[in-house]
């Protein structure tokens, strides 16, 4: 396998007005294509900072980020946006759906940005929401959905353009155990389709599903552990009702 995503000596220091606060300190990490990697560690260890830098949502203080042979950390904001649009899907702990768009419109957004026609994007969004078991909530506002439903919409949005790499920062962190299990099942299904997964989590069940677990402490990678090959995926609903 070749590394799809690679961090080399990645550091990030926050300047909060007082003394500089180091959040990440010289992290080296390589994610192979098709791999399911989970980053774990206590709060404040730098998991979210690492994912933000790898996804191009933030700029490193030092080090390099490479995605499929392209150096990401030196790209302009416009180039980064285009890269995220085509290659990356991101799922946040607090969903980050646009509150003024409906569930369906949130999913349509990356499809439209990728150049799909509006009608086609709407059809795809509705099909994806159906697949995720919330087709009947397609026209609901995000604030009218439960946490689990919102995370499914966010997941549909992240997967809409079938990106190479799907990242998640505590994607099950705000969900009850049932919803968390369902969302995990959906992510594993994506992985089973060949998509690369990189998740930061506190959830042991998520870690147990990964190919590799990276442990972080105080802004550094302290341990990397390969897990058993992923068990067959059990979806929380019937993916093909027909």
């Amino acid at each position: 396998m070749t590394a799809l995503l690679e961090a080399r000596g990645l550091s990030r220091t926050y300047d909060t007005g007082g003394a500089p606060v180091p959040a990440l300190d010289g992290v080296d990490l390589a994610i192979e294509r098709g791999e399911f990697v989970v980053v774990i560690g206590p709060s404040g260890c730098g998991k979210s900072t690492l994912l933000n830098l790898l996804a191009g949502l933030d700029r490193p203080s030092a080090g390099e980020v490479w995605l499929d042979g392209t150096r990401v950390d030196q790209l302009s904001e416009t180039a980064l946006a285009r890269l995220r649009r085509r290659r990356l899907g991101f799922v946040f702990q607090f969903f980050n759906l646009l509150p003024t768009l409906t569930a369906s419109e949130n999913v349509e957004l990356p499809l439209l940005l990728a150049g799909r026609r509006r009608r086609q994007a709407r059809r795809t969004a509705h099909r994806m929401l159906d697949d995720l078991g919330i087709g009947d909530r397609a026209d609901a506002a995000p604030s009218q959905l439960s946490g689990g439903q919102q995370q499914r919409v966010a997941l549909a949005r992240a997967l809409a353009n079938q990106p190479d790499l799907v990242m998640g920062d505590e994607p099950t962190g705000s969900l009850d155990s049932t919803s968390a299990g369902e969302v995990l099942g959906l992510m594993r299904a994506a992985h089973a389709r060949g998509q690369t997964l990189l998740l930061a989590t506190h959830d042991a069940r998520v870690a147990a599903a990964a190919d590799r677990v990276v442990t972080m402490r105080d802004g550094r990678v302290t341990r990397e552990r390969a897990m058993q090959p992923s068990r067959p995926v059990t979806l929380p609903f019937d993916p093909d009702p027909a």
Partner: protein
Amino acid sequence: MTLTLVRLAFAGLRSRLLATTLTVLLAGAAAGTLVLVLEVRDTGRDPWERTFAAAHGAHVLADLPTGEAAEALRSLDGVTESGEPQPQATLQLGTGTRDEPLLVAGLSGTPAVNRPIATSGTAEPGAGVVLERSLARVLGLEVGSRVVLSGPGGEEEIDVVGTAILPSQSRFPRSNPGVAWVERPVLERLQPDRSAWRWIEALRLGAPGSARAVADVVVRGAPPGTVSTATWQEQRDLALQEAAPLQLILSMYTVMLLAVVFAVVGVLVGARVLEQTREIGLLKAVGLTPRQVTAVFVIESAVLGLVAIVLGYAAGAALAPDLAGAMAETMVGAPTTAANPAHLVVAGVPVLLVLVVSTWVAARRRTRMSVFNALQSGRAMPPRRSLLTRAARALPVGVPLHVGVRTFLAGRARAVLVTAAIALTGSAVVFALSMQAALDDRPAGEPSDVPAELPALVYSLDAVLLVVALTSLVAIALLSVRERLRDFGILKAVGLTPRQVASTLVSPFAVLAGVAGIVSVPVGLGLFVVVYSVSGGEGDPVLAPWAWLVLVPVGTVLLVLLATSVPARVATRSPVAQALRID
């Protein structure tokens, strides 16, 4: 407790300096314009009263068919002083380039009452002629000019020996024909037919307040339709009528400015209270009752309103004398600041009321909710289903415009207020363009009763409106950026480029500006037609040509793009990760 509430209010004002400054400026502009309207009229009274005193003005001025009838008035009850009856006849004035009818008075010495006051040269005609000042100015004549006076008795070439004013004479050409004074023998030569003369009798009364009653006696004592009178109050009103078009336009602009300011204040107050739902919860949590929390917000608005009113009053009173210059043309000296403290109250009450009531309504609703519900109600939602939202969704537009319009439609009240504010400003520009077209349409060299200050006034007020509207747009756009910073982070995370993110903010403003610009054309033209007819315009009004009018929507969109582009840049600058951390 009151002291605590006041302290909390001042702390709130300090923490939102931009919104505080903007509210003061906008409310101040509204109060200032109101004061200006009120002051212009009062300001003109001062020089008129000085002119009346200097001319030893007539409390009652009577225009009669015979000298005998005029002479008889001098012994009326209540009359304490009177001048010799003064004959007048209409002659023709030739300047070499044009001929004007002229009302010429024949003097026999200096009149004891209502005597002309020299403003250049002399007021005693001698062998020459003295012209009323505004007439001389319009005809381009001055002391030393040579004119020809002609009548049924012949014509005489004669020197202009002075210009003068009278408190009973309003500005030429509003008062047409103009007035001049010659020695009586000159009048007798040029108009030998005495039956064509009119006689003016100027009376002073022991009780000036009884002028109307005395005038009624004069009219009743003569055959119907043969006598006319003018009391000193009527002379004053006529002289001050110069300000009527100015006042009408000032009033119209005041209403427009107030509407724009109130629309913007409505947006700002609504957004502030929405933004402060958390603060409301905190204040309630530390033990303030809903009434006390509302009081904190109301005190904030009241303080802003009071500062704005004082600033507006000072600005309005200071500008009034310049605007009253037109009516002072027939008076002694320049207008001075009247600064009537009652105007502070008249202008202040509506401004203060709008600020306080809008704050009270917005805050009261939110303070009565539970903290949880208050936070829920502040959460953005997709726009309600309607024909408009369906149409917006069906439009084949790009993602940024689609997202931007959806967001704007979600806050429909704000969209309506912003559109109304832009449309009103646009209509003021259309009004000014129509006025300019009407002025340009006048035949060259024709005397005009349009005060010289009118175009400058209209353009100044347009500039004020434009500045107010553009400043407000920048403020509302900045407010939108602050409210949507997290959304912008999400959009970037999903794959929108910085330019596209900026476009989600700018493009809906541009669409609203386009709609408002188009609406402003018929509204502005309608306003011009109404003002033209109310201020006594004759014939069909000349409207701005279509080529100018087309520029209004285009210019509106360009200016709005300019005003919102700076806040849009702010929207794109924030790093995604940082924007997503904003709660």
